[in-house]
């Protein structure tokens, strides 16, 4: 009797709980209910809307340990005496494999790096907005050249940036090797007039600071052009968009693959989850020795673009003859 009454009560609670939910969602239509009805609904619906459901903290505390029930079962069996052998089941050894809990495994596609003297952050203004990118000091006749992305020096197509400054070796808001303002900015006409992403590379010639040239203070990477496709690269940058903060240097390493979504871009991509702010960071083709690999290698591209909101591939432009002309022009300024 007791159990039936409890079940009926539960069903009542459930039905009134549903009604309450409908009333609450219905808003104005619930206003026809009397105040008494409202009171009953609120009280009856409490167990159903309780987040813990049946197992309230009180019921959990009051629950009887299972071994008490087991002891009672043993006592009952003792009273009956031993069971016959025929009653005992037998069969082949059987087992059922367990399963692991489902987990979401995310593998980071980047490595945190110590600062590198010749790699840094770039700050500039375009159309009244202040932006941040990454860049790298590269070997040049003028010993004052920084390589970055085209979209970090020019709107592509459109105006050139103002207030352009390079901070090599940046880490946590500090500029251990000074701040280097640009004297001139350089890019391919295909970028400045057409916004052609195949030419998303830019160069800045920076002013001397304290009478010294940039390359004499932080060094300068070698550069190379018209290299074979499919090389293994290590790219660097200061990703600033979440989940990164832009305060420290990050790298990605991988074999370059063609952009199959837009093959006409002629670019190559490597596995990488760096976010905004890493644009313009250098790509180094991996050499045969440790000294010729990583940040000590020859620069051959820059971080340029990705696809979608959670990009796992960073694409860089192919540095061919046109980019070489831009470089050669800039290094003489």
């Amino acid at each position, binding site marked *: 009797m007791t159990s039936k009454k409890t079940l009926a009560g539960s069903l009542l609670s459930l039905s009134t709980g549903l009604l309450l939910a409908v009333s609450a969602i219905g808003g104005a239509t619930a206003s026809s209910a009397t105040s008494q009805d409202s009171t009953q609904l609120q009280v009856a619906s409490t167990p159903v809307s309780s987040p813990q459901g049946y197992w309230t903290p009180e019921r959990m505390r009051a629950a009887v340990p299972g071994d008490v029930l087991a002891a009672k079962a043993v006592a009952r069996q003792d009273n009956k005496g031993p069971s016959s052998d025929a009653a005992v089941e037998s069969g082949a050894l059987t087992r059922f494999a367990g399963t692991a809990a489902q987990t979401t495994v995310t593998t980071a596609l980047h490595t945190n790096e110590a600062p590198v003297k010749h790699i840094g952050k770039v*700050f500039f*203004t*375009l159309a009244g*907005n*202040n*932006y*941040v*990118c990454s860049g790298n000091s590269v070997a040049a006749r003028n010993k004052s050249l920084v390589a970055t992305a085209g*979209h*970090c020096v*020019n709107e592509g197509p459109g*105006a*050139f940036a*103002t*207030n*352009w*400054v390079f901070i090599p070796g940046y880490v946590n*808001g500090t500029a251990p090797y000074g*701040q280097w*303002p*640009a*004297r*001139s*900015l*350089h*890019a*391919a*006409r*295909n970028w*400045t*007039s057409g916004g052609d*992403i195949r030419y*998303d590379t830019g160069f800045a010639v920076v*002013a001397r*600071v304290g009478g010294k040239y940039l390359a004499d203070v932080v060094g300068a990477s070698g550069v190379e052009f018209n290299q074979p496709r499919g090389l293994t690269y290590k790219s660097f940058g200061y*990703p*600033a*968009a979440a989940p990164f903060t*832009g305060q420290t240097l990050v790298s990605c390493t991988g074999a370059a693959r063609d952009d199959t*979504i*837009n093959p006409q871009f002629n670019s190559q991509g490597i596995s990488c989850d760096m*976010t*905004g*702010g*890493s*644009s313009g960071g250098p790509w180094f083709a991996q050499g045969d020795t440790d000294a010729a690999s990583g940040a000590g290698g020859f620069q051959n591209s820059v971080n*340029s*673009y*990705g*696809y*979608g*909101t959670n*990009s796992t591939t960073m694409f860089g432009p192919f540095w061919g003859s*046109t980019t070489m*002309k*831009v470089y050669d*022009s*800039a290094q003489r*300024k």
Partner: protein
Amino acid sequence: MHRGNKDDAGSSGEVVSHSVSEAPEEVLAYWTPERMAEAVPRDIRLPDPKEGESQAEGK
């Protein structure tokens, strides 16, 4: 033959060069720690065709 102008004096056919008008001291003075902290990452994110497909399937 490209003709140079105010923005790209010294440019050749394929290359555009732009002389910065601000003095280095002005640029250094402009970049206060606050402005650096508020600078927005400038990046290029192209539409991902796969994300478009998944959104269409979800509708």
